[in-house]
């Protein structure tokens, strides 16, 4: 696509293991910074050969460092999964499904290799949610809402409860009971997604490939904020590539999308993975998905927005119109999730907080744990 920034093109190549011809050391610096900012640096490191001497020492240093990070993350999620098995009752644990990054990593699929995530996402049935939350609190998992408004927002309208944080290890857990906000009116019958789930070695489960991928697409196109859009699109590229070799997979995926009403999200995911990552998708599949795409004028707008916001957001790969595209994605993200009167209330509450922040500086918010590490020093 013509609006693709030069470094986005390079990054896509690197993520598939190809080193672009004649890139300078300074290009490497830029690419590593962009990849780190977009949370794909470890994924890039695993795609490239960091053991041999084909890469410049400068790049190897940062890629090797990123690999160590990813290994640690994978180990931590493995540890937490074992913990959850230990502390939840057998009945409740059989109702746990890992989602997104944790699921990719725990299930060992390609999208899990070098996948960066900052929290563990877990789906449980709504009926068990209260008991599971209570049980987890005994083991030092506590909820961390910013304020009463946030707590109310989560409890009443969202598809998840406020994030739980382990007070010893600092791990964050997002407990979901659905995949999209209940208030949106588009929340699916969750059993449609959990049908055919696969068991992991730890005893918990991950969704069947078609459900995992459809959720990935829904999650991406239900966002307001696309800072990790490129990484999430890269997830979808890897998932399609890995599971898409079987026609039965595509059949199951289309049936699920039709049944749950997420055809548009699937069609968009196919459209933008193939255009940016050149994902191997059978042409019949692509063609079949087009019935879900919006009418031509609307599609032009979608393309204009998503072909921008799904690129890395670093200033080094800025594309003309990105700011406006981000704003349009933000509006759409809210629009599809909330009825208008709720949206207005939400905007007012968030706006008030932003004004406070602008006046008094960031310190007014309760310190975010991830941003509160004291610098090492004497």
């Amino acid at each position, binding site marked *: 696509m013509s609006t693709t920034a030069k470094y986005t093109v390079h990054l896509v190549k690197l993520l598939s293991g190809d080193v672009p011809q004649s890139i*300078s*050391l*300074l290009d*490497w*610096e830029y690419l590593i*910074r962009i990849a*780190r*900012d977009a949370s794909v640096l470890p994924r890039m490191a695993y795609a490239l050969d960091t053991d041999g001497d084909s890469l410049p020492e*400068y790049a*190897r*240093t*940062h890629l*090797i*460092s990123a690999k*160590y*990070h990813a*290994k*640690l993350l994978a*180990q931590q999620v493995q540890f937490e999964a074992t913990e959850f098995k230990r502390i939840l009752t057998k009945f409740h644990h059989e109702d746990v499904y890992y989602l997104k990054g944790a699921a990719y990593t725990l299930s060992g699929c390609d999208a899990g290799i070098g996948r960066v995530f900052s929290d563990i996402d877990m789906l449980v049935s709504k009926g068990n949610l209260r008991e599971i939350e209570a049980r987890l609190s005994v083991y030092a998992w506590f909820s961390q809402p910013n304020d009463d408004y946030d707590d109310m927002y989560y409890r009443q309208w969202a598809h998840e409860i406020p994030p739980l944080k382990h007070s010893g290890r600092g791990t964050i857990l997002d407990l979901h009971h659905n995949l999209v906000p209940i208030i949106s009116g588009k929340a699916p019958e969750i059993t449609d997604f959990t049908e055919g789930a696969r068991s992991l070695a730890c005893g918990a489960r991950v969704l069947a490939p078609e459900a995992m991928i459809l959720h990935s697409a829904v999650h991406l196109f239900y966002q307001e904020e696309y800072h990790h859009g490129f990484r999430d699109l890269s997830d979808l590229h890897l998932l399609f590539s890995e599971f898409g070799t079987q026609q039965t997979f595509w059949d199951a995926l289309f049936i699920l999308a039709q049944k749950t009403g997420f055809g548009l999200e699937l069609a968009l995911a196919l459209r933008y993975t193939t255009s940016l990552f050149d994902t191997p998708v059978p042409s019949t599949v692509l063609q079949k998905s087009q019935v879900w795409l919006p009418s031509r004028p609307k599609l032009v707008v979608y393309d204009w927005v998503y072909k921008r916001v799904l690129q890395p957001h*670093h*200033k080094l790969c800025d594309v003309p119109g990105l700011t406006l595209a981000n704003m349009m994605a933000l509006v759409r993200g809210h629009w599809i999730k909330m009825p208008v009167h709720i949206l207005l209330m939400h905007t007012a509450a968030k706006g008030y907080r932003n004004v406070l*922040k*602008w*006046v*008094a*500086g*960031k*310190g007014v918010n309760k*310190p975010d744990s991830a*941003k*509160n*590490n*004291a*610098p*090492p*020093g*004497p």
Partner: protein
Amino acid sequence: MRLRDISASEAAARLIAGDINIDLGVAAFGVQSALPDVQRVFYQLYGDYELLDEASPADFRVAVQSPKSLRRWYKPQIHFLLDDFVPFLPLPRSQAYPVLEWGMNWCMASHMHKYLLLHGAVLEKDGKAIIFPAPPGSGKSTLTAYLAHTGWRLLSDEMTVINLETGLVHPFVRPICLKNNSIDLVKSWFPDVSISNIARDTNKGDVAHVKPPIASVDNIKQTVKVMAVVLPKYTPDVSLDIYSLTKADAFQALSDNAFNDFVLGADGFLALQRLVENTTAVEIHYNDLAEVLAFLNEGQFSA
């Protein structure tokens, strides 16, 4: 070209533009700041370091900036940035320079995992390095400043950098960070040494930075074999007591002071193990730096 080869005003202009890339041996840092006090102290302390040309990559692009909130005028604050990322909450404006130094350490500790990184000073004499791992309050930086001006080569004050493959220690020469009373002590011992102005009331108390000796900066790429590990413990009523440490205690002490051993996993464990096996470790309780110097110069670590 060294930083001092350009004028202070050119350095200031280039710091505003973020067009200063300084070679610290194990890493190159691109530095940006529009704050005049940061520019002044940076120019004072890093004058002897080599500037990299514009085609050279930086390992980290860091900045110290005023945040864009109205707090600019009311109890002003500053931010440290790595690229566009703000890793910590803002700090009071008066701490701008120390925050740059501490932020640079944070960059290493959280992103440079090609090495084992320990919280500790390193000094060398006759091709043999001693590591001084120590938590804050042990008197490590005062000891470091003293040794660095009495015949020992400074490799590092804050961060020990160990090569995972060779086990050798890499210099990471940086200004020495003095706290509280030790600022005046060092000034009285070494009146000719260049020391930054004092940042008051930081979370570590009053803080000033000592310019590293030029001989250290000139040998910034010269790795050294580690001979001993010395745990310093400033003890007001003891002139010098030396305790020999078992391998297990030495391992524990190094591990307690490691920044990234948990990230390195098994490789970190093995690097610590190798370090302990190939060195002698002692703990010293002291109040008399001259006696410590004499002991270290003698180099008799085992009974």
